[in-house]
């Protein structure tokens, strides 16, 4: 079944597009009149997933990032996907403070922030094919 409203965008995997991705999601979900706190949670989670696609998925190589936003009543769905290198060990990647790039001053908090700011998060990844992160959150009633 299709959700009542959805939007999908593909953009070049460059850091300039991180703020674009946040604004795209915030603009789309503003139709649900979320609280300021809820919209910040969504922007932060999107920023984490998109940044991961750019830094880890493509590692400065060329590529496109996909951002999908949808809702059904008060339930928000977000997907962020890349066709980059993929994750070998997803359980390890999700551990707080785990990072494969400490030399880039990464803190290993991205997945933990997504989990905390959204209600559900699922990661599908195939080495050599790419990664797709699914997130859900139910907004408070208007």
């Amino acid at each position, binding site marked *: 079944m299709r959700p009542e409203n959805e939007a999908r965008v593909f953009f070049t995997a460059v850091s300039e597009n991180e703020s674009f991705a946040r604004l795209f999601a915030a603009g789309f979900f503003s139709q649900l009149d979320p609280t300021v706190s809820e919209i910040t949670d969504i922007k*932060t989670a999107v920023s984490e997933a998109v940044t991961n696609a750019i830094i880890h998925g493509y590692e400065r190589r060329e590529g496109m990032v996909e951002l999908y936003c949808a809702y059904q009543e008060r339930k928000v769905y977000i997907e962020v996907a890349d066709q980059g290198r993929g994750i070998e060990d997803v359980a390890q990647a999700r551990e707080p403070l785990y990072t494969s790039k400490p030399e880039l001053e990464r803190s290993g908090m991205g997945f*933990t922030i997504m989990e905390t700011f959204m209600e559900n998060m699922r990661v599908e990844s195939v080495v050599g094919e790419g990664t797709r992160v699914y997130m859900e959150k139910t907004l408070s009633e208007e």
Partner: protein
Amino acid sequence: MELRFTKRNQTLIAHISGEIDHHTSGELRLKIDRALEQISGKNIIFCFREVTFMDSSGIGMMIGRYKQIQSLGGRVAIACASPKVADIIALSGLGRLLPDYDELKAALAYVEGREAE
């Protein structure tokens, strides 16, 4: 993102405004390191009063500066973080290394070793 510096004794105060993400944190890192060197600073305060957004890139940037300051025997603190930024700081455990204060004055007292009451 915009950045402005003030200085007090050996403390560099970085007044950041706008959004801190992977895209802007590289420039922040570079400018803060350069400013610290220019004033031969020993401590850093990140003033978040005008920060509208921060993700984990901000945490990494601050931990990097903290490690540097630690080798100089100095201190680092955060001032005026919004509740959401404070959540991210708490989640990462960063608050144990760089305490965050509601007021710049208290942050200054901490980095200068004049612990406020």
